[in-house]
């Protein structure tokens, strides 16, 4: 029945001459209802002939307005991980360590206060695994123009991590990372929003992966990432196209380009479907060495065989199916599939001898606002 065509009346109203809504009106303000959400993530990855890593991840997220202008939000996740860590090379097949069963508990809390022309937020996060403890703090400031068409965001965060493995590969090692973000979001017109963010991250300390043979990385890393996104809404189609591009400059040498396209389609009855496709192409880190393991290793110099620092291209198709039940309940299912291949690197030059690496995520979420 025509009456269920979602948002059709508002779209028709905005087509009238001289009738405009305040852009971004709802975007800047304390949430006006409490929201709690439970998500369950199931992650598996594999390589041809290789074992799988599996993560079951129940998570809990809640946000609650404390007053008209103050909100607190927080989340807790609990990961159970089982299986061997991923295999990276043919040469390593069957040589990886014993099965691992580990748990991670993590939580964060953030307080945001809204004022007339700006909002400030402060947060803290803590994550605990048997061999890895991370503590982080963040401060952010957002400010907007009087017409609220433009928002500036500035954020600063710091993390202090402690790594200690029972194998002795890492003994009370430390890592410190500082992140700075500056961004601008502009509502160009009723249907187009453009955002550009620059993030600079610098860290020092222990960046090695203690579970990988010979892995030794530089003790300083700086990463500059520039992300630009645009969201174009098509009222007559009840859909939104989201495109993004990210350039990443990494002192490890693993520079990358990422492009993404997402289509969000609203459907009758509160349903929505959001297919997405992401492509990443990356250079190898300057201290990355291809197979066989240990080749090109020079004692005392950085070395890694971690496939995540190799030269490759990767595609991630995904889809989210969500339903807003209209009475405060929302539910969604998200499926993403990741496949990484050396030969998919843009312009060629991918790391030879690398097996394709695949992973998939299935996440189920249920939320309720009060």
């Amino acid at each position, binding site marked *: *029945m*025509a*009456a*269920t*065509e*979602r*948002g*059709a*009346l*508002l779209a*028709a*109203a*905005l*087509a*009238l*001459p*001289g*009738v*405009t*809504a*305040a852009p971004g*009106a*709802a975007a800047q*303000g304390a949430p*006006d209802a409490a929201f709690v959400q439970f998500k369950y993530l199931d992650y598996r990855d594999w390589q041809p002939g290789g074992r799988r890593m599996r993560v079951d991840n129940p998570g809990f997220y809640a946000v609650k307005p404390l007053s*008209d202008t103050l909100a607190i939000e927080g989340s807790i996740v609990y990961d159970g991980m089982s299986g061997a860590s991923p295999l990276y090379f043919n040469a390593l097949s069957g040589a990886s360590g014993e099965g691992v069963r580990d748990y991670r508990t993590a939580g964060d809390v953030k307080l945001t206060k809204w*004022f*007339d022309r700006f909002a400030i937020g402060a947060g803290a996060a803590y994550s605990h695994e048997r061999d890895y403890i991370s503590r982080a703090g963040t401060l952010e400031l957002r400010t907007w123009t*009087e*017409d*609220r068409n433009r928002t500036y965001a500035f954020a600063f965060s710091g993390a202090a991590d402690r790594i200690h493995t029972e194998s002795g590969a890492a003994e009370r090692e430390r890592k410190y990372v500082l992140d700075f973000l500056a961004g601008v979001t502009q509502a160009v017109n009723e249907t187009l929003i453009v955002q550009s963010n620059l993030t600079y991250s610098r860290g020092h300390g222990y960046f090695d992966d203690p579970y990988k043979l010979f892995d030794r990385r530089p003790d300083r890393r700086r990463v500059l990432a520039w992300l630009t996104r645009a969201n174009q809404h098509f009222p007559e189609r009840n859909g939104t196209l989201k495109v993004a591009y990210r350039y990443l400059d990494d002192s490890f040498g693993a520079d990358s380009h990422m492009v993404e396209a997402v289509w969000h389609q609203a459907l*009758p*009855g*509160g349903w929505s479907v959001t297919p997405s496709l992401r492509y990443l192409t990356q250079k190898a880190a300057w201290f990355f060495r291809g197979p066989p393991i240990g080749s090109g290793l020079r004692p005392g110099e950085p070395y890694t065989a971690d496939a995540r620092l190799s030269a490759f291209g990767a595609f991630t198709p995904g889809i989210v199916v969500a339903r807003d039940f*209209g009475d405060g309940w929302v539910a969604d299912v998200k499926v993403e599939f990741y496949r990484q291949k050396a030969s998919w690197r843009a312009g060629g030059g991918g790391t030879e001898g690398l097996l394709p690496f695949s992973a998939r995520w299935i996440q189920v979420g249920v939320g309720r606002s009060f």
Partner: protein
Amino acid sequence: MRVRVPFRAMAAEHEIVVDHDDARAARTAIDAAIAEVHRIEAKFSRYRDDSVTSAIARAAGGAPLAVDEETHALLDYAATCHALSDGAFDITSGVLRRAWDFRRRPPRLPSAAEIDALRPLIGWQRVARDGRTVRLPVPGMELDFGGIGKEYAADRAAGLLVAHGVRHALVNLGGDLRAIGSQADGRPWRIGIRPPRPGPGAPAAVALVDIADAALATSGDYERFLEVDGVRYSHLLDARTGWPVRHWRSMSVVAPVAVAAGSCATIAMLLCGGAPAFLRAQGAAWLGIDAAGAVHGTLDPGAR
């Protein structure tokens, strides 16, 4: 400071409130907004011989009449309302007033024959339009922008205020409201929703709704109705039956613009039990009071 200008147009009491540092600038902006409301009334009022509405009615049964872009845009919008309401909302149904006289004292109900006699004059699907013209096929047919015009005027008035640099304002056209920003002190505009059955013991407002950069419209059997044998017949007539709807006493809707809030509220009244699903599909927040006086909806009656 706050500048508040009451005025009268479209047979109702209106008011524009502006918070502004400069009272003269506020007044200039308000005057422009009021002039716009009067312009829309003059152009679309069915009570004025020189209006577009009257010209279209006079041409009914004759040759197609050329109309301007603004009129076409409103007709497009009316077509959407008609489709989304499955024909319950129909701007050709104003002729039913010839049978339903809500001012008549003593009140009387029309007979089924009186309503049937008007049916050949009702039916949006029979209105012929092309890009420039409109034609009503049967003499006696007419269009009534009453369900759209006031809210359209509120949005246009709000647009003029913004163009004059106003950042905090409330346009109140007979209880249909469009807020620009918040109040100057940052608090949202707090709107009370009148009880559909006022009287001794009834509260001044059944609900409080806070809005900023949004619109609130209420449709209901508040003023124009007739009561026969203790039953209240509202002026909201289902175009498909010619009879008033009785499921809801009132329906208040919050939407980004007044014209959407107003027609959502009216269509929700007409759809009776189908209102919640319709409003959910339109993404509107709402508060409805049913025939028994019970409150329903997604707006918290105690201020959002």
